């Protein structure tokens, strides 16, 4: 039996940023741990591989974020235009480059690339990870989780079948 003092190794898989909370998904030997951080307090949820019933991968645009970035871009563009009219072209251009341009770049990148979302559905919980630029990583995580869940469930089935084969006839009563 392994020593109990050693903490389980947690391997970081991905995160899901939110408006108020952010989630970090970590892998431990028996499943996934979802750390939901609200402020400075983190709450842990676990999705066990032997309870996983569905893993999905899809591409989402994230319309709320797109809308917010679009509005930011418009505000920054108007502000830089006004600054340019009042203070001259260099001032307006400077403000545009440092405020509106990053927002525009992010907006178009997000619109074009979207965000790959891996969702792992367990019996009692769910783990979700979003990957904006790392598309290959999203697929890798999707395949990894699906493989680990399949391996664990196949192993459980095998063990149960083996145990059932070596058992005497059924015992009727349930414990009270």
């Amino acid at each position, binding site marked *: *039996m392994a020593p109990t003092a050693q903490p389980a190794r*947690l391997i970081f898989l991905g995160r899901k940023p939110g408006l108020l909370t952010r989630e970090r998904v970590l892998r431990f030997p028996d499943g996934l741990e979802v750390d939901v951080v609200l402020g400075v307090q*983190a709450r842990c949820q676990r999705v066990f591989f032997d309870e996983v*019933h569905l893993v999905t991968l899809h591409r989402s645009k994230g319309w709320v974020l797109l809308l917010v970035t679009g509005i930011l871009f418009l505000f920054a563009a108007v502000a830089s235009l006004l600054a340019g009219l009042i203070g001259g072209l260099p001032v307006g251009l400077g403000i545009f480059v440092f405020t509106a341009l990053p927002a525009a770049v992010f907006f178009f990148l997000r619109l074009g690339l979207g965000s790959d979302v891996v*969702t792992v559905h367990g*019996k009692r919980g769910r783990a979700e990870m979003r990957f904006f630029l790392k598309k290959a990583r999203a697929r890798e995580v*999707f395949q990894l989780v699906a493989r680990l869940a399949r391996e664990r469930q196949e192993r459980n089935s095998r063990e149960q079948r083996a145990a059932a084969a070596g*058992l005497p006839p059924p015992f*009727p009563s349930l414990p009270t």
Partner: protein
Amino acid sequence: MTSLPPADAVDLPDVTCPHCAYSVERSRVALGENLCDRCRRTFEACCFQPPARPVRVQALDEAGPGATACAQHHGNLATGHCARCGVFICAVCRIEADRKGYCPTCFERLSDEDALDSARRRYTDYGSLGALFAVLGLLAWIFGLALGPAAVHYSLKGLGQREALGETGTRVALWGWLFLGVFDFLAGAGFLFALLR
């Protein structure tokens, strides 16, 4: 010894489209790419049929002389004792956590106290605390002399926490907050120096 029916029979819900939450029958979802009937968008899916976990118990009558009964289920043979309170427990009662077997009462108590690593439910994220102080120090750099060291302290504590939990992954953000804390301190000190001059 026998297999009891699983406490919770495996009753799997339908698959929902991750885009529009439209419910799709599990049998119609194929491995790989699927098209949602409603929103006409694609998603990849991998469905599983998790096997129910049967619990095996041995009756006390079958075990022969010298066998001990479970403290909770008098008809069941005790397979061990609780690692905390020492009460005899059967296979039904035994809850394994951190590679030790506990009775349900002790498990409940220990997990409420967050004393079990594998059943840990909440903790203070020191990295976030470091970030909070670092950003506050940046916004109110007059107080940087106090907020900067606090940011550094909690960022270091956050790094230690990640290490203690055995987490892998990048720590760039934590180092960033640490350096921002140093910057806050220097800005605060510079401001104080300018005031005193």
